[in-house]
């Protein structure tokens, strides 16, 4: 079966001998015929991971880790009554949830939304900037974000060709939502499929 997770990052990334990769990459690789694919949240310590063809016992081990959030097997079902759990799981990792994810979304739409939001911190990483450091969270207001990070956010938005409208009280989650809303309606590839 195929499963999707949010899980911590391990590895220093100093070289391919100690790569940045998902916490359970080695466990997934130990399953015959299984593989993993990931999209990272820039330099933040979390990855969206798709495990392809893993077995039930391996999934149970991964899902039992309190640091892991496992999406349901059927990604076509709506989030519905699990909305609070989903939003909390996202916000605990500084991924906007409360202002981004509605109950009407399916989990497939959630995966697509997370991939899109992750693109913004990846671009910041390419600019040499980590967003969620020095006390900055998704709830931080623009006026409290360091000036260099503010500049990096504006540069990042411009690099995508996106606009960014902020006041002193605009939160980081609102900024990421603004950027999300401007992402073009195109397929995204991840884990051997389009989202």
């Amino acid at each position, binding site marked *: 079966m195929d499963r999707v997770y949010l899980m911590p990052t391990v590895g220093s990334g*100093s070289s391919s001998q100690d790569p940045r990769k998902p916490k359970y990459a080695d466990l997934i690789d130990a399953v015959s015929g299984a593989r993993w694919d990931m999209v990272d949240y*820039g330099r933040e310590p979390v990855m969206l991971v798709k495990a392809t063809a893993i077995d039930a016992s391996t999934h149970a081990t991964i899902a039992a880790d309190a640091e892991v959030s496992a999406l349901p097997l059927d990604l076509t079902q709506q989030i519905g009554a699990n909305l609070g759990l989903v939003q909390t799981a996202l916000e605990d990792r500084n991924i906007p949830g409360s202002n981004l994810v509605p109950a009407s979304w399916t989990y497939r739409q959630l995966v697509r939304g997370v991939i899109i939001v992750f693109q913004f911190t990846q671009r910041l990483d390419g600019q040499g900037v980590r967003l969620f450091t020095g006390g900055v969270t998704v709830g931080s207001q623009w006026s409290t974000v360091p000036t260099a990070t503010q500049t990096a956010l504006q540069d990042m938005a411009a690099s995508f060709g996106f606009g960014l409208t902020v006041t002193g009280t605009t939160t980081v989650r609102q900024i990421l939502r603004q950027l999300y809303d401007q992402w073009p309606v195109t397929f995204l*590839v991840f884990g051997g499929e389009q989202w």
Partner: protein
Amino acid sequence: MALPATDAFTDTNGVTLPTHNANWVMNNGAFQIQSNTLQTNSAGAEIAGHWTGDTFADNQYAKLTLASASAAGVIGPAVRCAAGATATYYGVYSGTVGGAGLTQFFKNVAGTWTQFGSNIFGAAVNDIYMIDANGTTLTAYKNGSSIATTTDSAITSGSAGVTGFDSNTTRGDDWEAGNLAAAVVYQPYQMAVQMRMD
């Protein structure tokens, strides 16, 4: 020069890549020429170099043939390599590490190496590996078939090049790189006109 850029690495044994051709600039580590192929030459370290003889579009590709392999070390093509000596690029490299013939698909951002997915096994001498970057979509190919693909926005531009790891007899040959053909995007009004013409 005109794209695609090519290099068959024909030169004297032991010549470094930038000495072989001044259009090559190293990002990190070292390559050298051996037996008219490109060989990794940095023990236990990541290696990359990029081609400065042409200007590449953001949407670009690079490919390299796995010419020989050893018990350690990997080599392959890279795209969107940073200018100068910064270890920033997307790459796919292969070898016969542990005898299994593995391929790794990755990004290196300012020296932080991140793997996009599981190792892919089955690499063999004379396989041709290619990587392309098309907007935020990255795809790795073996002998013309896609073997891995992902979405990543960390690196937006740069030059095509080569990448590797370690110092041994793993070698690459027949490097080629160029721009991807521009995609045809139909706007709604164009689609309507096209439908009427059809």
